């Protein structure tokens, strides 16, 4: 309940009803329970991915360290695979590929797609039409299909993976930036900047970019999640990392044939992938919630 004294101080700073600037992305993530859980799990998995290699009990690629396809034992906590390699050691080193490739590919897609999308939306006309058609064209192709066709044609390598994933995500990310920019440039502060005669670059960086960062960041996080799943899936299909290098997706596929004998050989790396992907998804979701919050209240029925 407001008392008179609250109302009187009108001449100085007035009642602050809303927070001023929307908080930065990382603060928004940490503000939600979901985001905090995501960051917690994510940090743990990332720690394993980055530093796990220093704690391997056996050389991860050494064949015949133990018996073939054994269950867990004191010597091999997670058992061994069909070639007698130590599953735990392979698990500790096998997560690098599925996080590094997506990070590079999605960042590239974001930079290129975002630039094109923002430029198209701001310029309009033919430039925009060409960019939008181009995006539509690439997006009409089923993603996994083109990646598989590309691998069938060019063989697999990290470069092929990065490039094809980039091609898949570039139009999708570009389209989001384009849409966000289109929404922002209808604002009169952009018209005000144009009337001041500001240069295109100044308008895009000063007026537009700060206002599309939030939805773009949420999209970026989401795409990373998708790309991690994507790369893990390709590895699982045997179309990514080449043997003998350890990788979680490859381990799941290799262990699948022995799921009766040594279930951990396939379940442990599957769980690792699941944890990483859940963590990333929780973070992305926290960001998305933050961006789309403040929707209308629903009508009571």
């Amino acid at each position, binding site marked *: 309940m407001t008392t008179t004294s609250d109302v009187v101080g009108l001449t100085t700073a007035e009642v602050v009803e809303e927070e001023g600037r929307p908080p930065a992305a990382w603060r928004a993530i940490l503000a939600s329970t979901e985001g905090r859980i995501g960051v917690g799990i994510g940090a743990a998995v990332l720690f394993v991915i980055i530093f796990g290699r220093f704690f391997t009990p056996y050389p991860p690629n050494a064949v015949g360290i133990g018996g073939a396809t054994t269950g867990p034992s004191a010597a091999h906590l997670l058992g061994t695979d069909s070639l007698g390699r130590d599953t735990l050691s392979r698990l500790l080193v096998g997560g690098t590929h599925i996080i590094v490739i997506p990070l590079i590919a999605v960042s590239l897609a974001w930079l290129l797609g975002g630039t094109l999308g923002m430029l198209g939306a701001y310029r309009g006309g033919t430039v925009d039409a060409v960019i939008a058609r181009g995006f539509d064209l690439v997006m009409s192709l089923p993603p996994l299909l083109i990646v598989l066709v590309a691998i069938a044609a*060019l063989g697999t390598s990290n470069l092929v993976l990065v490039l094809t994933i980039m091609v898949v995500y570039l139009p999708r990310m570009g389209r989001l930036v384009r849409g966000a920019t289109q929404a922002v440039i209808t604002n009169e502060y952009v018209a005000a900047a144009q009337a001041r005669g500001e240069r295109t670059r100044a308008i895009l960086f000063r007026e537009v970019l700060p206002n599309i960062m939030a939805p773009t960041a949420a999209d970026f996080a989401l795409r990373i999640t998708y790309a991690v799943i994507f790369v893990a899936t390709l590895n*699982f299909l045997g179309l990514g990392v080449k043997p003998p290098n350890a990788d979680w997706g490859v381990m799941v596929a290799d262990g699948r044939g022995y799921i009766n004998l040594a279930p951990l050989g396939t379940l442990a790396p599957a769980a690792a992938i699941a944890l990483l992907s859940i963590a990333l998804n929780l973070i992305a979701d926290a960001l998305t919630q933050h961006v789309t919050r403040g929707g209308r209240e629903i009508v009571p029925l």
Partner: protein
Amino acid sequence: MRLRSARLRTIGRQLAAGLLTLFLISIVAFGMMSVRGPADIAHAKFGNQITTEQIDAFSKQYGLDKPVYVRYGKWLWNFAHGDMGNSYVTDVQVSTNVLPRFERTMILSFVALLIALPISVLIGVFQARRVGSLADLSLLSASVVVAALPEFVVGIGLLFVFAVELGWLPVDSATALTFASSFGEQAKAYVLPTATLVLAIVPYVARIARGSLREALGMPYTQAAALRGLPRRTVIWDHAMRNAGVPLVNAVAINIVYLLSGVIVVEWVFAFPGIGQGLVQATSTSDAFNVEAIALLMGAMFIVVSLAADFLVAYLNPRLKAAAAR
């Protein structure tokens, strides 16, 4: 009526766009598969000892000495007439490999969609009606977690529980589908792949359904309908859902291809002899004709699904019809 002819025109345009996409897929697939020259293919098939004369003979036999566009034209022409060619990797007719696979994949995908879409919408409606409640938030968290799991992880999990531990269902779909004749045995082989696909689709679509219905439930027209004393059923399904349906179907249409791509992985996990498995196999052996044929068939399947979605949107959104009339 003007609206009707406008709708026909919209449908015509979308059909043309679909055919164009299919054409594009065929060019991309054929073009990329032609990057490997006859020598690479011959080496892969006959080993490195093969002589230049033998390569030339091989290349002549399969017509690989002709320019790409000639080969593409011939392939497309034959394909349109039902001849998918012979694989020069396995020497087996592509159609005998691909067509039975295609049939199984079609069944798998459409059954999965048929189960997943109504469930998703119902869950979404259930949640949107009680946004912020414990039930809603639990379902929301669950959907985030399930959506985060790659299909092969879900598949392996289901396989472990239901096939390995409980032994209810076959570990290997291929044996069940290719040898077992009884309908029951065959149907069993579909259960886990379908369940995995459904699990991949539901959290995603339910989330969109929840969001778009929630938005529609907050609109003034919903309030107005409620204040006209209309029954809850009419307000939700006729007033809110009809509007929520447009963004929902649109989002599903955009993502259906993405979601259905999961069929490739699911088939691989369960050794399900569909075109997805065929595609992965053909990819790892760079089997050009098989890759191309499957790419085109899968593309056609995806396009049919997204066309269906487009038509639904045109039906739900009268504004679209009017816009097309202009």
